[in-house]
């Protein structure tokens, strides 16, 4: 697609993140490499515990101890984030990378006025004075679609609906003009019609302001619709990555296929029985040498259980980590769908 002439905005290479726990070392992120060019949108899909959020917290160095990055590199805008001082990192978090979390009710401080959430960053990172910060806050509130922003700036969060609170969080994340916006399940807590509004807003910010976006979600249709490229994560590994249209027309990893088959098709007339992925995700403290998906994979053989496949480029921009050569055609729904959970 676009020529990789310029350096990518974000380049994650061979990232490993671990959490020491009483039941052993939990390997939450395993050898993850991702890159994102300026102004583009990357989607990360996966189920809970797949490592999609921990990867982003590692990038922002917001892991709560004892979680730590064991090895790897995160280059953002030409700088190695894992080597920055805490002070420099604070600047990156404010003005370089904006973060939006799932539940606006929890990421907002209920005792502080709505505008304060935005003005704080403006004063700290852009060194604006109180008056300038307020003016800019009102401007950004208007930009994200808050009606009558000059009046609402002094409201408290409980006076806002969930969707409006999420707009405030987006305004706070973009007010310092970051190059990258990370949105971690930004619409999961919201109603369907409001979800569409927020996704539209994020997409407009990307096209109009040129902010690159990483959208983390479990909803394949959402990433497919709003991202140029999609990475599928499972048990801390990127198992497949491709431009979104390619991924959803020609999925090649058995897990990606499984995700697509376990959700109902859109607008079909016949009622097809859903095909769940049998079993459950593995215990991340007890990952063996083999492919982490092998225990649930209908195509797994000896090689899969003994050694883990590397991410390789199948075709242009389509990356896959799987030994088996599976396509949607060869993987036609088997008659017996295997046993289900337990």
């Amino acid at each position, binding site marked *: 697609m676009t020529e990789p002439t310029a350096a990518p905005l974000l380049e994650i290479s061979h990232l490993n993140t671990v959490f020491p726990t009483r039941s052993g070392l939990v390997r939450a992120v395993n050898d993850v490499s991702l890159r994102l060019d300026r102004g583009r949108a990357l989607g990360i899909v996966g189920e809970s515990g797949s490592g999609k959020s921990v990867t982003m917290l590692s990038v922002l160095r917001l892991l709560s101890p004892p979680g730590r990055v064991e090895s790897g590199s995160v280059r953002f805008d030409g700088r190695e984030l894992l080597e920055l001082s805490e002070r420099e990192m604070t600047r990156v978090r404010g003005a370089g990378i904006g973060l939006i979390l799932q539940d606006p009710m929890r990421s907002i401080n209920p005792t502080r006025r709505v505008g304060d959430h935005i003005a704080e960053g403006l004063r700290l990172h852009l060194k604006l004075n109180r008056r300038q910060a307020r003016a800019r806050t009102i401007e950004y509130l208007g*930009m994200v679609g808050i009606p009558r922003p000059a009046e609402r700036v002094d409201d408290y969060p409980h006076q806002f609906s969930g969707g409006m609170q999420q707009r405030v969080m987006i305004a706070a994340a973009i007010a310092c003009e970051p190059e990258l916006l990370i949105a971690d399940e930004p619409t999961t807590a919201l109603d*369907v019609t409001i979800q569409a*509004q927020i996704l539209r807003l994020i997409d407009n910010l990307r096209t109009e302001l040129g902010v690159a976006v990483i959208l983390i979600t479990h909803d394949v249709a959402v990433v497919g619709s*709003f991202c140029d490229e999609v990475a599928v994560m499972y048990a801390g590994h990127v198992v497949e990555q491709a431009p979104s249209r390619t991924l959803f027309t020609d999925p090649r990893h058995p897990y990606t296929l499984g995700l697509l088959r376990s*959700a109902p098709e859109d607008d079909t*007339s016949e009622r097809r029985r*859903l095909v769940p992925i049998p079993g459950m995700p593995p215990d991340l403290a007890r990952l063996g040498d083999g492919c982490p998906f092998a225990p649930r994979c209908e195509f797994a053989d000896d090689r899969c259980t003994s050694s883990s496949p590397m991410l390789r480029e199948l075709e242009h921009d389509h990356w896959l980590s799987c030994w088996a050569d599976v396509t949607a055609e060869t993987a036609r729904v088997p008659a017996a769908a295997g046993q289900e*959970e337990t």
Partner: protein
Amino acid sequence: MSDAATNGQPLIEGRNLTVHFPAGATGIPLFNRQHNVLQAVDGVSIAIHRGETLGLVGESGSGKSTLGRALILLRPPTSGEVLFRGEPVTAARGAELRTLRRSLQIVFQDPYGSLNPRARIGDIVAEPLIVQKVGTKAERTARVRELLEMVGVSSRLVDRYPHQFSGGQRQRIAFARALAVNPEVIVCDEPISALDVSIQAQVVNLLEDLQSELGLTYLFIAHDLRIVEHISHRVAVMYLGKIVETAPAAEFYRRPAHPYTRALLRSRPTLNAVRSGDGRRATEALGGEPPSPLAPPPGCRFHTRCPFVQAERCRDEVPELRTLRQGHHVACHWAEQILDGTIEPRQEESAAPQLQLTRNGG
């Protein structure tokens, strides 16, 4: 079972159900001066036939959970009537109510919150049997094992605690508990929303299997339109306490007539659109937010957000739920004109409010 189900007497029916909550109640009598009323459910009639799954969708606060609870007598309606097997049961109390509860069960959204963390799963599933004084202890133990196996949880695990199970397994246990007393109707209140995608499919399949084996009748409350389409025979949409449209599932998804239903269906991203390379454009956002149920708009409650709103009737005349064609009911004054294209949506409403996107200083 689905097609025949719509004829004859409904198994369970709500007639003109209204549920009001006193609003602004602080719990401190001194401050309970204002007598605001929240109309969670406002004059809703709903009927479900034996063996049928009725999907109920709507935004949070639209009253769908309250309606579900009123229908199975967990929440006394402010007015209106519930009929079970054709008999009025709204006034049932005491022993009569306890007997009815055997037939009317519910499964909740959050399998972490709905199972007592200190009880073994065997005791959790046995509890309805004890409350209903069913069988001897030995018979109950046997029944619990049978129920667990039926929902796909090994009966060897009866002595484990809920935290030892995954979300999907807990939801299976919640179903085993609901099934213990041989219910006929189960209200499934967002039963899969808290589960991961691959696990959702397992629970949906379980629900379908149980229905065909036991002839269960479901009210399936959810906000995921794709799952509702898959599992439901008929679908009803609620908006601010009223049902605005109800139709057989296939008709509902192919020929939605109410502007709110149309907006709901258009605001969900679909993989088909992604595959044809137009995911971004295919998703349309309905503008605005649902008004407060404390002060619903006059006339049609959707008129404040409706892209088809007309100068006549919409703002001052409440649309009744009326029959559009066999089995398809809609509460919109202009449904026919919207369906045949004589009334077109206002352009500015088809997308989110246009944003002023100009970057400061560059």
